[in-house]
């Protein structure tokens, strides 16, 4: 990094100051502490983790770097169901967030009027009750014999979801549906806020113009509003998908052993089994997969929809 090896200010003669040199160094001095922090506590740890992933050994005997790349393959072979599940759950939750979040963002941007600030506060406010407490509240909401499950049962929705494999044995808690519900809930604000920001920038006169040109509200939305909100859609989906794919809180609190996500595995391997190489390899695979999905997605949305 050229920040760290920037030359220190040369001790020139004190009377003839060189403001140009001093000025040139100001940005480097401003950057130095923060960037150093990120290098030491963000970039360097990644290097350590990379080296850990190719080590072998045990906690008693110690770990040595043996360039044992098989760990990667073994880790993937052992835990690919959890990987696929994580991507599936995170993808579904992201889609649901978009589906649920769009109308609300639209409402705040165009329909709320003087209620706008209040609704925005209500979107952000749940943040301030610890998300773990709120996730635990879902246990009450989705409880067996609770109102939600009863209504679903009476309307025979449960039969359909069970047939689809989302729920099991007439219960919602400890099923994939509960985990996806929790994920959707927890990451919804991350979808709504970028959507709102990009919708708010749209000039309302464009809607009027579309109406003057005999576009129906649906056409206006499809041809004008939605394309113009694409930046928000892209950043919203990324902000939802990335953290959701590594999350293990929802799967642990609302799911069962059959709904474990890869974050759970990493946590268990690291903190309980103390198999550091496997855990490090797993988190690198997760990082690679997420980066791959994200790059592919940005490419796609960039070439097809953002034009």
């Amino acid at each position, binding site marked *: 990094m050229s920040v760290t090896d920037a030359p220190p200010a040369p001790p020139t003669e004190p009377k003839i100051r060189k403001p140009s040199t001093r000025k040139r160094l100001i*940005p480097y001095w401003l950057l130095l502490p923060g960037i150093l922090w990120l290098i030491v506590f963000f970039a360097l740890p990644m290097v350590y983790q990379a080296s850990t992933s190719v080590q072998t050994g045990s906690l008693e005997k110690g770990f040595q770097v043996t360039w044992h790349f098989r760990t990667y393959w073994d880790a993937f072979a052992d835990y690919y169901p959890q990987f696929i599940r994580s991507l599936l759950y995170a993808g579904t939750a992201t889609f649901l967030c978009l589906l649920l979040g769009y109308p609300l963002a639209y409402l705040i941007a165009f329909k709320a009027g003087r209620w706008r600030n209040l609704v925005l506060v209500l979107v952000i406010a749940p*943040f301030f*009750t610890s998300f773990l407490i709120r996730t635990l509240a879902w246990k009450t909401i989705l409880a067996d014999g609770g109102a939600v499950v009863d209504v679903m049962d009476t309307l025979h929705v449960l039969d359909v979801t069970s047939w689809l494999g989302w729920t099991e044995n007439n219960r919602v808690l400890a099923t994939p549906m509960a985990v996806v519900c929790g994920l959707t809930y927890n990451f919804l604000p991350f979808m709504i806020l970028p959507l709102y920001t990009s919708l708010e920038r749209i000039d309302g006169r464009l809607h009027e113009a579309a109406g003057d040109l005999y576009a129906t509200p649906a056409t206006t939305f499809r041809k004008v509003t939605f394309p113009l909100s694409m930046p928000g859609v892209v950043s919203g989906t990324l902000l939802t998908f*990335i953290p959701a794919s*590594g999350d293990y809180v929802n799967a642990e609190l609302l799911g069962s052993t059959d709904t474990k996500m890869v*974050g759970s595995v990493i946590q268990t391997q690291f903190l309980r089994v103390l198999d550091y190489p496997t855990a490090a390899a797993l988190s690198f695979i997760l990082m690679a997969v997420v980066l791959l999905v994200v790059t592919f997605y940005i490419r796609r949305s960039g070439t097809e929809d953002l034009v």
Partner: protein
Amino acid sequence: MPALRWIRRNLIVIAGLLTLAYMILPNIVVMVFSFNKPKGRFNYAWQQFSLDAWKDPCGVADLCGSLGLSLRIALWATIGATVLGTMIAFALVRYRFRARGAINSLIFLPMAMPEVVMAASLLTLFLNMGAELGFWTVLIAHIMFCLSFVVTAVKARVMSMDPRLEEAARDLYAGPVQTFVRVTFPIAAPGIAAGALLAFALSFDDFIITNFNAGSTVTFPMFVWGSAQRGTPVQINVIGTAMFVIAVAVVLVGQLIATRRKSNARK
């Protein structure tokens, strides 16, 4: 049918309000169950109305200790991340220099990384250094991941600032320090405040990174996590409710002051 037509015309509003209800529902449940008197260890089913938990919010061992610890960590993490992040934001917006692109991506990456990956890698660093896990490792981790968010928030504000205001101050013989204190800082303050608030909320609520790097230190989210297995005391709902009410009150009062100021300025 007029009713159907009304629904069709207001479809977006109805869908939006339903989403809002979905978002608020758990908060309402938390609130209601803070008045519950559970029979067993778990506070998941309604039994009986009671004010016991509200009268004695610290009645559970370690609960308020963990809350205090979380507040302390959040406070220091906010100060650290805000100072470092504001400096970076100013450097990035105000100066042109080499490695700008590299620095921008170094700041972006922590936000685009699943939290477990960051948490696990930081733990390998601490283990390799032989650092003792606890208050300091948690604080270091929190400053690290809050930093990027502060930079983004402050950058947005500084970018919309007119640099000519500072030039004008200098033309009026204000020194660099005076210019910063009297002109630059007041204009950038809302952005810095937004960044600081975000850092505080993120640090206070963080579980995954703390879970990896705290050792046997117990922050409030970790206490809640542990209690999910042992049985959640009602007091957790009391604290959740209090946090929600305080946050809404603070934001609403802030809004009120802002609108009042705006209308005063118009007069």
